[in-house]
């Protein structure tokens, strides 16, 4: 491959968050007109790096050069003006406006101060043709499906003459047909000289379109290589790191006992098959699957946080009825949500308030709170989980991510549940805190509790679970026992429902 000039040169990029070094002296060159793949586990630093490039975060150390000149974006607008566009995982669309208005929101064609709708719709139609989306420019965005919204985001990004297009997990919600359409678009943009930075967890697909690939791990760059020089397993090894054995504790002495919890024919959407699985005492059950495969939704429905269409739950072989989180908690089921800041914690209240929130009856009598009982209960759990906080009065907002997650854990331990469901328990926390959380999971298992762990971090599930249930497109694609664990097996199950039961398109050299 002939060496194109660099459009981006990043030197020693460092970004600190309280308690976590998100990026640690990253050097990275992006060549003009290439498709540069960025991979890494959750929390490896991909998103932080993108946010620095597009002006959302300020960097703590390091320099950026864009087209040969120093580049210091202060706001996202600076990045847009420089020709850098990002398509985020989450949508930034205005649901009640039309497709056309959304795509050209920043540059509506005007005529004497009025929107020139004729020209707007004509321009929109040509962009829609380009991304291959067959909807009217006048359609309201709220009427579109998720995949269509994703394509609208892409259409929005390519509507302006951008030089760099950053795609953050663009295929998470797309079907194989739409993905191949997207790859055609990427190919066309590349021929037009647009540089593309492409972030994805789906390693196979990145091999189809990438020129070079950079692997990040724990905020550091592991390597950048030309795509034809590496294989999927090599990339996985780089992402996971060599010390995998030590990273995940597994206690062979703790073996699951009898069944304590069973889900039968749970249905959340009428269009999908019902879900059934069980959980045993002292078992760590992993739930794997791609983002958007219905894992989180299933767990929320079990907990009563969202409504379900049908399904029965059994605890110790006795049917329980869960219509709200209150019912679930009273039956001894707890859910540690994915988004701890918005759903798990009351950030602007002290640690002890958060911890006792799950069961105020323990620290009150006839409606009156016993402050001393609350504080001593909180102090006990803070010591037990070694939560680093100057006092129980400290607002949770001021703790580090790992310690916040431990406060969430503490509040559920305070309730003494039978079944604990963890949704992404280690997302965004550093390695040391992760290890402590795994150790705690094992301690709970040793006490005979049933533990369900939903995670996008496959090595984590492979490392700590007894058994993994794999979700694929809102179905359970299969169950794998620890003796049969392998990354390939679980990934192929996870993709199963997306590719109509045909084998995964793994390249020859990628096979072990």
């Amino acid at each position, binding site marked *: 491959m002939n060496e194109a000039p660099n459009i981006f040169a990043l030197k020693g990029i460092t970004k600190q968050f309280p308690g976590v070094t998100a990026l640690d002296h990253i050097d990275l060159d992006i060549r003009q007109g290439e498709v540069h793949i960025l991979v890494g586990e959750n929390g490896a630093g991909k998103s932080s790096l993108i946010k620095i490039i597009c002006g959302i975060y300020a960097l703590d150390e390091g320099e950026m050069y864009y087209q040969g000149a120093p580049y210091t974006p202060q706001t996202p607008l600076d990045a847009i003006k420089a020709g850098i566009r990002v398509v985020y995982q989450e949508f930034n669309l205005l649901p009640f406006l039309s497709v056309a208005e959304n795509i050209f929101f920043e540059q509506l064609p005007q005529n004497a101060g009025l929107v020139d709708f004729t020209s707007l719709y004509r321009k929109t139609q040509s962009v829609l043709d380009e991304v291959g989306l067959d909807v009217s420019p006048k359609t309201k965005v709220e009427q579109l499906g998720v995949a269509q919204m994703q394509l609208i985001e892409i259409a929005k990004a390519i509507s302006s003459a951008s030089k760099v297009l950053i795609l953050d997990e663009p295929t998470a919600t797309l079907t194989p047909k739409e993905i191949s359409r997207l790859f055609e678009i990427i190919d066309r943009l590349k021929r037009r000289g647009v540089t593309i930075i492409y972030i994805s967890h789906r390693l196979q697909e990145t091999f189809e379109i990438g020129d070079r690939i950079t692997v990040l791990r724990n905020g550091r760059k592991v390597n950048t290589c030309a795509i034809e020089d590496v294989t999927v397993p090599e990339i996985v090894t780089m992402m996971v790191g060599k010390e995998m054995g030590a990273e995940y504790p597994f206690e062979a002495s703790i073996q699951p006992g009898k069944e304590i919890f069973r889900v039968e024919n749970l249905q959340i959407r009428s269009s999908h098959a019902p879900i059934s699985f069980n959980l045993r005492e002292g078992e760590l059950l992993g739930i794997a699957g791609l983002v958007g495969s219905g894992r989180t939704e299933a767990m929320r429905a079990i*907990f009563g946080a969202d409504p379900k269409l049908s399904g029965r739950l059994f605890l110790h072989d006795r049917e329980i009825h869960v219509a709200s989180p209150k019912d679930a908690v009273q039956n001894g089921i707890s859910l540690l949500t994915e988004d701890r800041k918005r759903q798990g*914690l009351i950030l602007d209240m002290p640690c002890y308030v958060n911890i006792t929130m799950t069961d*105020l009856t323990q620290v009150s009598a006839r409606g009156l709170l016993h402050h001393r009982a609350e504080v001593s209960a909180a102090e006990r759990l803070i010591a037990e989980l070694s939560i680093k906080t100057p006092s129980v009065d400290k607002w949770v907002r001021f703790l580090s991510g790992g310690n916040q997650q431990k406060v969430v854990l503490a509040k559920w331990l305070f309730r003494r549940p039978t079944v604990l469901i963890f949704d992404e328990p280690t997302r965004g926390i550093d390695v040391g805190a992760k290890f402590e959380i795994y150790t705690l999971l094992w301690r709970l298992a040793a006490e005979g509790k049933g533990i369900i762990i939903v995670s996008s971090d496959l090595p984590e599930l492979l490392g700590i679970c007894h058994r993994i249930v794999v979700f694929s497109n809102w179905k359970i694609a299969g169950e794998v026992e620890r003796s049969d664990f392998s990354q390939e097996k679980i990934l192929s199950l996870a993709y199963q429902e997306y590719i109509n039961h045909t084998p995964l398109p793994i390249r020859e050299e990628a096979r072990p």
Partner: protein
Amino acid sequence: MRAKNIAYFLLREAGIGLALVVLCIIFSIFAPRFASVANLTNIFTQISINTVIAVGMTFVILLGGIDLSVGSVLALCTVVAGLVITNEALPVPLAIVCAVLSSIAVGMACGFFNGFVTERWKIHSFIVTLGMLNIARGAALQISGSRTIFSFPSAFNQFGTETLFGMPYIFIIAVVLVLAGRFVLNRTVFGRMIFAIGNNEEAVRLSGHNPSLFKIAAFTLCGVTVGLAAIMYMLRLNISSPILGVGFELNAIAAVVIGGTSMSGGKGSMVGTFLGACIIGVLNNGLLLIGMGDFTRQMVTGAIIILAVIIDTYRAKISVQVAA
């Protein structure tokens, strides 16, 4: 730890207290009559009703809600209580008791309605209580035939003017309610849930609670305080009328906001609300004494409310630093 708590207390409540003291000093200088016993008693009487309503309003605003209907509901309560108390079929002591209970019951029912509709259909309380503002006013006019009701029993009228150690009874009732409200907020499970829901309702729900129950209870409680305030107003004026209480919601909200409670919920205190009500009362009285007209007074009060909110944004920043 103690020192930090004291600093925090100073920022939240003592600052408002300090402003109140400064206002009193200024008025004493420019209007010698201000500091007289007669005038201070007058102020105590004037702020009592607003204080009681503001106690209830504090619960609602701490949840991130609002109750615009309190003024109209107060009128409805006075009308119902007025009809009961003037009912000649009842012996006087029983009539008084029934009047008090019916006023509280009416306030409670209206508050429950506000809370229930807000929660059952997830409508913003601004809209629901705006509807109730009209419903209650209309009902008051309907029930009373748009007439003022008077000639209450003399025992009732007399109690309104009585004092204990120079303090009007209705002011003592208001202070007791503030203390009770403070106790409920800081020491009970209910109060804890109010703060927690105001901060992060979803986290509370996912912790296994039903926030709707607490929210409905808070609106109901606000209605109860309105029912009480209605009786206190009748003690003061010795009349019931369907046109009483116009604009009372704004005074109560102003007291809560000047007292440092955040309109988005989750942060605030009952003592702050009381001090806020005192500031409004002192301003109204003091500005009148130094010769300011009605219209100018209204403008000044409005400016003070805005100023209080501006100061609060700084206070929030500093208290975050203290907590860190």
